[in-house]
């Protein structure tokens, strides 16, 4: 028995159950929540070298599952997000007037499919297996995005499809070249020749589209802004992270010997531009959900901005931990923010930021959740977002990377500029009548997520220790000052 399999098998079993149960499918979260949280805890408790082959079939043919630091951080965070989002989504995706609806029925199997897919993605080292998990997650993501706007959903679908195929093309080249697509084996075998470099390039490009890194982000804001709040939360918190994690695995584990500084700075530069561009776009938004969606574009930039900082670091473990903590903190905070925004917008007449007047008084808990999430996203202390940006800034200054350090600082300030705007309106007085729409259970979801994002700020050492478990050799051992062959 091992949580490595069960973390994937259990959500799939729940997906089947939800599909068969129909109306009753939504009740399953009451079982799935404890089960998955328990499995996540079990994952954390595994010995550091926990890994096994599915069905005992050896590499290079078989598939290896592994509980490394990435998985140990992201699987539990994903689990918490899913549970919170599911509890929040409960009244929204319930039968209406005793009748099952298409959305209420399909939401739950899609949720579990996405859950199983993302867990599978975090745990596997096999690049083709990753392709299948990407498709599991994308499929569910497209369906959820289409629940808000069919047009945005279709656009997302097309982009995601091409992204997947680019990734698959890379896998095909690697499979032909090395007769294996296992990341741990490729780490030993990969040589910097044309097929390998091309494979890495197309895979990265495909995944960047999925991770919505500027300038490949175009599909994200419309899709994430239009979807229902729980769907937006999952899209922004979970879906984009999988693409990022795979890139992380490719660049620092499978192809650590192939990657060149120019490439890593290209990625870092795109990340830096994403931070600036996303923030400026967010500042320009008049409506709340597009603002939060553009904030995702900006926040994803930090994940890639960190790449050169990890690469050049004297102690790569710290920026490595930082980027993972950022991923987790963003997951929690962004899910919280979308859920809180959903509650706030439901209570007021419109969807504009200016409609939020006086909400801090009418719905203090929702606004609190939004504010706590905002603190983490801005990278202000104490929060997981701060821990991450602090470590990154430290690394950037240590390495004399003035531009990255500048972007980290400016990005934080721009973040404050766009996130304090809705808060400011909410704290303002308003004559408009306000409907009270805070259900205790519903507001508990964003509040818990946001509180966790803040709490991460107090667990820095634990997070760093976790992230170093099974870290790729390039991370675990300090690299030379000048990276190279």
């Amino acid at each position, binding site marked *: 028995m091992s949580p490595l399999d069960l973390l994937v098998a259990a959500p799939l079993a729940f997906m089947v159950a939800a599909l068969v149960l129909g109306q009753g499918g939504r009740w399953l979260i009451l079982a799935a929540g404890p089960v998955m949280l328990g499995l996540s805890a079990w994952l954390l408790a595994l010995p550091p070298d926990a890994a096994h082959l599915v069905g005992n079939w050896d590499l290079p043919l078989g598939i290896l599952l592994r509980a490394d630091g990435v998985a140990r951080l992201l699987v539990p965070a994903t689990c918490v997000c899913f549970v919170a989002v599911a509890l929040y989504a409960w009244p929204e995706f319930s039968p209406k007037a005793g009748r099952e609806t298409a959305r209420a029925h399909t939401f739950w199997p899609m949720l579990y499919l996405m859950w199983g897919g993302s867990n599978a993605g975090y745990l596997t080292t096999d690049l083709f297996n990753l392709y299948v998990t990407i498709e599991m997650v994308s499929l569910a993501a497209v369906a959820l995005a289409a629940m808000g706007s069919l047009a945005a959903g279709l656009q997302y679908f097309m982009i995601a499809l091409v992204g997947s195929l680019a990734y698959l093309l890379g896998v095909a080249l690697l499979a032909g070249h090395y007769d294996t697509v296992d990341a741990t084996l490729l780490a030993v075998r990969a040589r910097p020749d044309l097929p390998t470099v091309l494979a890495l390039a197309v895979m990265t490009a495909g995944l960047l589209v999925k991770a919505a890194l500027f300038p490949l982000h175009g599909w994200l804001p419309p899709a994430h802004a239009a979807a229902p709040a729980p769907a937006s939360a999952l899209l922004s918190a979970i879906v984009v992270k999988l693409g990022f994690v795979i890139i992380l695995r490719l660049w620092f584990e499978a192809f650590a010997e192939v990657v060149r500084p120019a490439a890593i700075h290209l990625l870092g530069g795109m990340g830096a531009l994403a931070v600036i561009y996303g923030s400026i776009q967010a500042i320009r938004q008049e409506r709340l959900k597009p603002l939060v969606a553009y904030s995702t574009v900006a926040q994803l930039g930090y994940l890639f901005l960190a790449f050169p900082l990890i690469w050049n670091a004297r102690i790569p473990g*710290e920026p490595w931990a930082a980027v993972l903590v950022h991923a987790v903190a963003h997951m929690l905070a962004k899910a919280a923010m979308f859920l809180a925004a959903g509650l706030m917008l439901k209570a007021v007449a419109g969807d504009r930021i200016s409609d939020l007047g006086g909400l801090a008084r009418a719905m203090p808990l929702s606004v609190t959740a939004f504010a706590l999430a905002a603190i983490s996203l801005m990278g202000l202390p104490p929060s997981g977002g701060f821990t991450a940006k602090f470590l990154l800034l*430290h690394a950037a200054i240590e390495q004399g990377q003035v531009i990255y350090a500048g972007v980290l600082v400016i990005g*934080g300030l721009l973040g404050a500029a766009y996130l*304090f705007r809705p808060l400011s309106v909410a*704290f*303002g007085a308003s004559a408009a009548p306000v409907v009270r729409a805070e259900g205790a259970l519903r507001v508990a979801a964003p509040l818990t997520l946001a509180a966790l994002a803040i709490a991460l700020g107090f667990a820095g050492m634990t997070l760093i220790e976790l992230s170093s478990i099974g870290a790729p050799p390039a991370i675990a051992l300090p690299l030379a000052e000048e990276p190279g062959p």
Partner: protein
Amino acid sequence: MMAGAPLFLILLPLIPAIISFSLPERLAVWRNAVNLLFALVKVGIVADLLRQVRGGVDLEWRYTFLPGHDFLLRVDTLALLFVSLSVFLWLITTVYAIAYFGRGPNLSRFFGFFNLCVLSATGVALSGTAITFFLFYELLTLATWPLVVHNGDEKSLRAGRIYLAYTLAGSAAFLVGILWLKTLVGSVEFTAPPDLSAVPPLTLTLIFVLCVGGLGVKAALVPLHAWLPAAMAAPAPVSALLHAVAVVKAGAFGIVRMIYDVYGIGTVAELGLGTPLAALASVTILYGSLRAVMQADIKKRLAYSTVSQVSYILLGASLIGPFAVIGGLVHLVHQGIMKITLFMCAGALSNRLGIKAVADLDGAGRLMPVTMGAFTIGALGMIGVPPVAGFISKWYLGIGGLQSGAPWVVAVMAGSSLLNAAYFLPMLYRAWLLPPPERAGFRELGTSRDRMLILPAVVTAAAALAAGVFASSAVSPLTWAKLIAERGYLE
């Protein structure tokens, strides 16, 4: 007392904060009781700490929150100076705020954030490393923002925006500065100043500029002061807090820490950073006073006065001489007590008589003699009239300037005092010597709430007077400032 005492002291306000946040508005009595109770408890604890630290006890609490970055809380003499000022004035302001707001809207939220401010200010005072200081400094920004926008009107929201823009940018610069320093010399602890000898002077200067520039925002150094007058949109208790204790003092306090506990007097002198900073502080002192003269609104006038007065502290710190340091440190307390008196009086005037502009002050002394009496003591103190506390500060600063070979400081002091007089005396003149407009049946101390509103100002005015008259006694701020100087900086 255990080593956890500093942590306990910091976290104590969390309890009233959480209680305030969760209590509905109709339970205002309970909320007020809890707030007063905890403010009193804190005063008691700090009094005990003062006794211990005077006896030479060192308390510290350390926790490694990230590799190479310690979260360190330390109770030392300088920290206690700021802490005791904070807890004393907080108790006063709590009483005042309860009376000022009565049963207004959003007060649960107000008192919640109010307590978070105490938490952050205490944290700022007790921080033992630069990074710990930054954490609380940033938290202070977050906790004060909801207070600035408390009124919720367009003016407050705008003030809130300006406030955030300035302070967040400032703390970002400060963060870059201390991280840069950390990468060069390792951990930056206040008790164990880092060895800077290996760092190139230019780098050190740049880092100093970043840090002092960042901190200077909150300390309202010209040209980084614009947020402070704008923040006048906040209600009077908040202004009192921002101006007298929490925010501006945190900035000034941070700069003192930078000069004495991070760089050390020697390095600052070597790099030649003291004189430019002193010059900047002097410019701020004169500019603030000049602007204050031109203000027609009472609170605005007081705000510019703060801009000017806070820089006395910086002037004292940057002159680097025993008397100047003592003058600067003691002014940290004196300015706090006097300025809070003035703001509380201004708040009472506007709350009870609707007086907001200087021109409306006519005859206010006859209508509200007690309030105006307190105001007068504060104003005279600011001008530097003996025996009010302000005189002591100016005296020490002037002598300090002469000691440090900067006789121009005396001229700055004199000029500033003249300007202070130019903006305070007309107010006193109007209030006491001109006849009031008709206000039938007004009674200053009609209800118990009235008395609560005015009592705090009377207490602080008395304290300002006492700090001056009994400056040489064992418990005066001056004695404590001398102790700090002896223990820390003048060996």
